[in-house]
Structure formats: structure tokens, C-alpha cells
């Protein structure tokens, strides 16, 4: 799966003790995507600029931007597209200059750039998106998740919201006729979503290894859920998960609430902690509704697999097979790759590069003792496997 949005390319430079972090983004209008039904569409979006080539490939949604509480974030937007774009930092309460609204903040004309700078004052789940002719630019794909980790390791907010594994779900939608022919969208008021996504994927794409929630009975799963669509999303959790709502919009709730379903309106974000009450294979069902008339637009199922322990995993892509064992692991993990690549990467769930490794005779034994507990991706030449460090 080309979920390589995670990727080598979340290029963050830590300038001062990890407290000031700098990202180079490009906004572009040349994205191409094949939908789950085979339809080819175009999209607009954001990508991380390669420090080597100076180019960026855009993804739908854009790369997850993830920082620590208290970080000073410097984000350079290079608008290399033929139209104006901005970035609005949705929910981060930045000052007016950095708010990313053209007529009140700073326009970023075609072919120009702007540097946003702000401090991550609150943990939580946020969004970023273009705020130029927003009904069109958001619909065309110019959005992504922005995460600020909690004050404690592996926490949503603080020591009371600690997880063992975390997963992010960005729900969005598309009016495919606009994306098929971006030069002739509209009229904007008659926007009609007809394709619904979780993290940019839909339907059977969500069955792929990369999109499955894996866990074990002892896990506490932290879910970040956000909706960038124009309609509302109803998330129904499987009964085998005990789910507690702990936060929303970057603020911890005054009281936790046990839930089995959650409705998320446009632009809202929520965090939940979920504990498995049994071993199971099930789904988290996501229904998308048109707010105007409450008609169901579509449904996606996110697969959840709670096992006693994860076994050897493997993934095959274009006759290349990546194998990984043991999984989970606490000390060493062995990677076998049936292909020509000589190197691979370990990235975390947000796409941050954790380390590189070399393959010798198609194999590598990787020391993972220094990794924090959690979930990672091990990727070799387009093949990617989710790996759990115990």
C-alpha cells in the first residue's frame, strides 16, 4: 500500500533540544489518486519538501504533523502551485498573523511562501487546512492532522490519559466530480459528497495491513478521531471495546464519559481510550451523513484485531515479500525482504523517521531495545508492516 505517507520525508529539524521544530511544506495541485472503485481523480494538498531534491509529493490527506507539548513550531509553506493557498491551524488558537486566513492574516500567493510560527500550548488533536475559498480547497484535499502529544510519554493529554498504542483516524469526504474535473467545480453550494474516507482510504482499502488496528488484550488503545468533511460522522465502536471519551478539540473533558458511539460534526476532534474486554476480530463502523438532510452518504469499516500476541507478519507487494518476526518484540526483530532493496526504515505512527537499517543478503536483525513501547512501521521499498515494540 502506498501508505508511504508516513514516510521518509517528514523532515523535521530539531534546532534547540527538540523544543523548536521546523518543517518545510509545499502546497501543490498535482495530486493523483485512484479511488477504491478504480476512478482516477486529482487532488490538491500538502507534502513535505525533500531536503535533497527540494520537491514534494502531496498526499491525501496531508502528512501528519506531530509535535510535543510546548514545542515552538516553525512551518515554511512554499506555495509552488498556480493558485493561492494558506494553512489554517484549526484549533491551535494561534495569533492573527499565523491564522492562515487570507483576508485577516496572510495571503500566500501562487509562487510565494510564508513562514508560520507558533507554540503548541495544548496537547490534543488538531487539523490543518487551506483557508482560501475553503469550500473548494478543503474539498479538493488540502487538509491533514496535527497532533500535539500529551505531557507524559504515550499520553493523549496527561498522566490520566496514557495509552499503550495510539491510532489516528481522519474522516473526510469528496465530491468526486469536482476532483475529476477541478477546473469546473461547483456551484459550491451544491457540494455533494459521494466518496467517504478514513485517512484517505475507503472500502476494501481499509482491509490492508497498514489500516488495521492491532492490539492485545492488555492494551489501552488511544484513538484520535477527527472529521474534516462537511457532513457528520457517526462512529460505532465494537462492543468488545470499553470506550471512554476523554477529550475534544485539544482540551481534556471535565469528566470522562463511557460511550459506544460518537458523533463528530465538521471540524470537531475527539480522543478516546479503548480497552479490549475480550479477544476479537471486529470493526469500528463509520457512517457519514449529509448534515442538510441526514441522508447516509456511505460507510467505512475500520478493522480491529485484538489477539493474545501478534505472530509473524508478512506483506507482499508486486512479487516482493516483507517478513517480520517476532512481532511484537522487545529486543531484536528480524526483517526478511525478498527483493533488491538494501535498506529500510522504521517510522512511528505519525510518520516520523525513527531509524534506518541495512539489509544483508535480504535480511536484517534490528536492535529495537532503545525504542519506546508502541507501534511502528517497518518499510522496505514500498512494503510496510506494522510492528509493535513491547
Amino acid at each position, binding site marked *: 500500500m502506498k501508505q508511504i505517507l508516513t514516510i521518509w520525508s517528514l523532515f523535521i529539524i530539531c534546532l534547540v533540544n527538540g523544543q523548536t521544530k521546523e518543517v518545510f511544506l509545499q502546497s501543490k495541485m498535482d495530486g493523483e489518486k485512484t479511488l477504491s472503485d478504480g476512478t482516477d481523480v486529482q487532488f490538491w494538498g500538502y507534502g513535505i519538501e525533500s531536503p535533497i531534491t527540494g520537491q514534494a509529493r502531496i498526499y491525501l490527506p496531508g502528512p501528519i504533523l506531530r509535535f510535543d507539548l510546548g514545542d515552538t513550531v516553525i512551518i515554511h509553506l512554499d506555495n509552488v502551485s498556480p493558485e493561492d493557498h494558506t494553512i*489554517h491551524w*484549526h*484549533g491551535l*488558537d*494561534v*495569533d*492573527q498573523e499565523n*491564522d492562515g*486566513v487570507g483576508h*485577516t492574516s496572510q495571503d500566500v500567493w501562487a509562487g510565494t511562501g510564508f513562514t508560520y510560527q507558533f507554540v503548541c500550548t495544548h496537547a490534543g488533536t488538531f487539523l490543518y487546512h487551506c483557508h482560501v*475559498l*475553503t*469550500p473548494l480547497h*478543503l*474539498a479538493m484535499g488540502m487538509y491533514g492532522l496535527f497532533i500535539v502529544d500529551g505531557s507524559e510519554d504515550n499520553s493523549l493529554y496527561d498522566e490520566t490519559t496514557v495509552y499503550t498504542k495510539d491510532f489516528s483516524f481522519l474522516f473526510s469526504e469528496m465530491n468526486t466530480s469536482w476532483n475529476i474535473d477541478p477546473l469546473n467545480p*461547483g*456551484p*459550491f*453550494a*451544491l*457540494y455533494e459528497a459521494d466518496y467517504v474516507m478514513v485517512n484517505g482510504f475507503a472500502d476494501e482499502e481499509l482491509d490492508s495491513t497498514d489500516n488495521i488496528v492491532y492490539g492485545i488484550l492488555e492494551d489501552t488503545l488511544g484513538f484520535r478521531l477527527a472529521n474534516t468533511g*462537511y*457532513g*457528520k460522522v457517526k462512529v460505532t465502536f465494537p462492543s468488545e471495546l470499553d470506550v471512554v471519551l476523554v477529550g*475534544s*478539540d*485539544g*482540551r481534556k*473533558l*471535565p*469528566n470522562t*464519559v463511557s460511550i459506544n458511539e460518537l458523533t463528530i*460534526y*465538521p*471540524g*470537531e*476532534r475527539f480522543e478516546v481510550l479503548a480497552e479490549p474486554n475480550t479477544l476479537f476480530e471486529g470493526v469500528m463502523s463509520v457512517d457519514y451523513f449529509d*448534515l*442538510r*438532510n*441526514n*441522508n447516509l452518504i456511505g460507510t467505512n469499516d475500520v478493522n480491529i484485531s485484538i489477539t493474545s500476541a501478534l505472530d509473524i507478519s508478512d506483506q507482499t507487494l508486486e512479487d516482493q515479500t516483507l517478513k517480520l518476526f517476532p512481532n511484537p518484540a522487545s529486543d531484536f526483530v528480524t526483517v526478511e525482504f525478498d527483493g533488491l532493496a538494501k535498506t529500510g526504515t522504521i517510522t512511528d505512527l505519525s510518520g516520523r523517521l525513527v531509524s534506518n537499517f541495512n539489509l544483508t543478503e535480504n535480511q536484517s536483525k534490528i536492535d529495537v531495545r532503545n525504542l519506546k513501547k508502541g507501534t511502528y512501521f517497518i518499510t522496505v521499498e514500498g512494503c510496510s508492516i506494522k510492528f509493535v515494540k513491547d
Partner: protein
Amino acid sequence: MHQITRNTIPIRAILLFIVFLFNLSLKAADTLYINRDTLTITPVLFQKAAFNLDTTFNAKNAVLDYAVGSPIDLIITNNDTVTHAVRLPNSTGTVNISEASSVSITLNNLQKGTYSLYVESDVGYFLGAGAVIRVGISGQKFAWDLWDQDPDLTSDFGNQVISELPNTYRPTLFTINGVVDHMEPNSASVITGNVGDTIYISIVNNGNMDHTLHFHGYHIEIIQSTHQPHSVGWIKDTFPILTKEAMTVRLVPHQPGDFPVHNHNLVATLFNNGYPRGMVTMLMIQE
């Protein structure tokens, strides 16, 4: 408990005169008039209904303020040509008010917050008649009266040709306080204040669908809600206001600036295919 008195006389002109005398005799009570008219926001023609403080139609619903604990006496006069059924706050019942007649009501036991006194029968319901009742809210306070409709349907509702929304409802008219343009400092919907102020915003959804407001630059605290009491105490930058819901939020600005507030169902930020119009307004906060 709501105490209700009815007056009904068939001849409209005589009746309105008697209503006038009746109102004079109850000086302690505020009077609300249910008005309806056809208006144009160029180039769109549509019908709208509203509760106003006199017989002159204003697309913006009236806002009334009361203290906590005191009975609220109101006279409601139906200045329209159809009977309206009015839903009273904290009540499951409605009060029917015939054409050109009045009722007096008393509202008791309303706690601090914002309430909607809205028309539940078809014409007034779909055309957005809903007074904003604020109880116990003092200091800097603002009110937003949200409404949505498909302009092409409004005359059909007004003429009672249709009595429910089509299942393909796609409104193209989204208003705050009866208007679609809010970007001027003197707009009735623009929030003004200073850093550190405590600002209360009463929000009533008199529309026909749920709406979602997003605040740039700030979070607010939900301090009261008629439809989502579970969310009281939540601190949010984006939150829904359900159909016919009334809500009070508190804003304490921590920084100066001009920031938009808008519906994040972005079709509601358009009017006549122009952006940003509709449910888009501003926070203008000074140091």
C-alpha cells in the same frame, strides 16, 4: 408551569385594536409579534418569519433579557395570516395563536441560560420564527440567531403548499441574525471586546438542520445547552448547535485580533456562490 390566556376575535382590524388595548393593560409584560414578510438579499427573494418587538417585520428574531428567578410575563401577538403553534421553553406543549390574536404566557423556573421560544407549526418553524430568551446573563453579551432555508421553498411553506422538508433538502440561504454579510464592524453578529473580558454568546438555531460553528483564535466554554446538556463544561473551538437548540457559551479572549467564526459545514459559508458569506462572522478583540 406556563399560564395561558387566550383571546380570539374573527374580524382582524377590530381584533388588533382590542389586542392593542389588551397589551396596554399588561404593561409589565413584554410583547412579541409574530411577523412574516418577503424580502430580498440581492438577488435572492424569499419569505422569512420572526418574532419582533413591534409589528414591523425584521428578519432578525427579537432578543429578550430577564433575571433568574422572576416569572417572565409575555404577550405574544400573531401578526401573521395563519395560526401559529408556539413552543415555550422547557415545555413539551405548544400554544396555538390564531391569526391576529394574542395570548399571554408566564414562564417560570428558567435557569441561567439561553432559550428559544419558537414556532413549531409548519410555516413559522420552517421560516425561522424563534425569539431568543436570555435569563440571568449579564455583562458583555451577544446573540446569534441561525437560520437556513432553500429560498425556492419559502413561498411554498408560506403558502402552505408543502409542510415538510424534502428528503433532498439542500439549503442555499444561511443567515446569522437575518443577514448573510457580517464582515463589517457594525454587523449585529460581530463580537467585539477586549483581552480578558468575559463575553457571553447566546446561540439559537432557528434553522432546519444542525449547524457547526468553528472559532478561530479561541476556545469557548459551553455553559448551558437545551439539547446537549452533556456538553456543558466542555471547552471547544468547534461544536454543533442542533436544530432548534439554544446554547450559551462563554468566551474569555486571551489574545487580541480579528478572527473569523464560521460554520464548518462549508456550504453554509456561501451565498449566491460567493464566499465568505452566510454563516461567517467575526471576533474583533482589542488589547
